[in-house]
């Protein structure tokens, strides 16, 4: 009967139900979009770090992010790292912002990623057209198909210039977007070195260190630190964090996204609290009658909480449908929104929490019911 009463009370006033559901829906969509954007941006920022087969990253002191490594390091660091106990492999990686000259004139900034994929460094993710062998051909590079227009090229075989060097699109990746909006251009290490003005050198932005599986990463890191002066050694997780901090928090974007999500929760809670309270007020005589009939206060609280829970479930389902449509529509935009099972579960928790909080004011209201009002109607 608790469920029946809650259900009927909820559906009795369609207008109020609509307002409640729109409130929850609005919150869910807002929170989903904001957090989905946050997740999408995070993924974008850390995609290259996540895909590199490295336990530790050696970088010049003060390197800010994957894109902003700073000064190139010489080969001394590489040899010292190789001589460190526990180190299985050290792979150099060159990452630099460079000027891309479009064939038809004009230029744009790109991020040159020079890597020896065979040696376990960053691989261009999800190649859809062409292979790594195609990229190794003279002047060849890989770019993302979603950036072809920005780069002023048509596709495989198109040529352009990076700095003063000629490049030719030899392979395409799909869906590797860049948070900085400067497209990643993947190429072999030696070509990257010559394009950033260090042809034939051993220079590198990062050294990717792979540790023997039986070794303690933290110990190897300390060994490396004691040998390498002026370099930093970060674990994969730390480097991800640093890149995220650089792009999401130094720029304020992350704060805006999380702030927007919190605002969504707040607005949703206020709307649901308001409608639940007014519903309880409208049905206050019935609750007083229940009390006169001898119901416990817990019974009445359960009716209100069930009402809140029902709103939460219906609102969540509607909100998720809309949020998923928005996620789908965002996939071809520069900043796709990401929805994960964890985020979906998190949103459900937030919705239930929001409705439970909203029920508080209504419960306080019924707690003050004077059952004597049943006679004075």
């Amino acid at each position, binding site marked *: 009967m608790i469920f029946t009463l809650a259900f009927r009370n909820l559906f009795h006033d369609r207008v109020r139900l609509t307002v409640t559901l729109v409130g929850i829906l609005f919150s869910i969509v807002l929170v989903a979009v904001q957090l989905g954007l946050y997740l999408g941006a995070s993924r974008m920022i850390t995609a290259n770090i996540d895909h590199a087969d490295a336990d530790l990253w050696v970088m010049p002191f003060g390197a800010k992010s994957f894109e902003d490594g700073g000064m190139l390091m010489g080969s001394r660091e590489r040899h010292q790292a190789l001589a460190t106990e526990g180190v299985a492999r050290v792979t150099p990686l060159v990452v630099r912002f460079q000027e891309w000259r479009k064939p038809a004139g004009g230029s744009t900034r790109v991020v040159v990623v020079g890597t020896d994929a065979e040696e376990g460094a960053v691989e261009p993710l999800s190649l859809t057209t062409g292979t790594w062998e195609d990229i190794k051909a003279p002047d060849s590079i890989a770019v993302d198909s979603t950036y072809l227009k920005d780069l002023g090229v048509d596709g495989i075989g198109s040529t352009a210039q990076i700095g003063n060097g000629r490049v030719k699109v030899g392979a395409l990746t799909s869906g590797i977007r860049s948070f900085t909006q400067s497209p990643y251009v993947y190429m072999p290490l030696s070509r990257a070195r010559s394009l950033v003005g260090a042809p034939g050198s051993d220079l590198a932005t990062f050294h990717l260190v792979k540790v023997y599986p039986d070794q303690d990463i933290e110990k190897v890191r300390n060994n490396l630190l004691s040998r390498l002066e002026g370099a930093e050694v970060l674990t994969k997780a730390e480097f991800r964090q640093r890149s995220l901090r650089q792009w999401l928090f130094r720029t304020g974007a992350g704060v805006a996204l999380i702030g927007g999500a919190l605002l969504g929760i707040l607005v949703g809670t206020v709307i649901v609290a308001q409608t639940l309270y007014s519903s309880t007020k409208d049905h206050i005589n019935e609750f007083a*009658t229940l009390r006169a*009939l001898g119901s416990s206060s817990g019974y009445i609280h359960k009716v209100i909480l069930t009402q809140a829970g029902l709103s939460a479930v219906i609102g969540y389902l509607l909100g998720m449908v809309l949020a998923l449509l928005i996620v789908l529509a965002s996939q071809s935009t520069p900043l796709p929104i990401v929805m994960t099972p964890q985020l979906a579960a998190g949103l459900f928790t937030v919705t239930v929490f929001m409705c439970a909080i909203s029920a508080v004011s209504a419960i306080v209201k019924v707690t003050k019911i004077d059952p004597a009002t049943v006679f004075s109607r």
Partner: protein
Amino acid sequence: MTKKKTEAPAAPEKNQETVLAATGIVKELGRGAGTVMALKGVDLRLVPGELTLLMGPSGSGKTTLLSILGCIMSPTEGELSIAGTNTAKLSPDELAVLRRDHIGFIFQSYNLFPTLSALENVRIALDVRGQKGYEAARRCEEVLREVGLGQRLRNFPGNLSGGEQQRVAVARAIVSSPLIVLADEPTAALDGENGNAVMELLARIAHEQDRSVLAVTHDPRTLPFADRVVRIEDGLIVGEERRPEGLDAPEITDLTKRRKAHA
């Protein structure tokens, strides 16, 4: 009525243990300068098997007394015991349990749940007592049939006449077999025919099911159904009449007329 009497030969005095005893009930309502002494020391006892009418002018304290007897309000002074339990030191939730176990209520404006069907309105009275499931549903149907609503189980209050709604309320009040049924102006919103039907039901509940029924009223048409009439004026009980053994309905009506004539 005559028929009812012959069907229920149980005399009022058959069972004389007190189910409700109120002594020296005083109730002050309002605060400060607006304080009203609604009850000024009321004594009342209810026994099973009787329909008692509480009559009095408007503002005399009838509803206030009913609220106190029903453990919905606590008295400022005085003692109340229900089924042998003294209510003085009970918490609101303990009072709710006492109501749940022993008292059924009927209200002037029915107080049905508009979003629940007739059957569900009765079921909720058992539900708050933790009685759920098929057995409870069957019991509710049975009681609704007893009050003549066997064909209206699925109707919502909005689709029932006033008389039918009040009969649903009666069913709700008696479904848990309470010792005491308290009714505030149960016929005030009904026309003569429907009012009589409800009063007849209340009398039957008292006589056939051996309950104590107390009905507040200022409707003289309800008099023929009473076993006992208690009169209240300005917060004090001013008189009590009882239908003498063997006397039928009209006599008590005459009785009250006699009293009015004397007054």
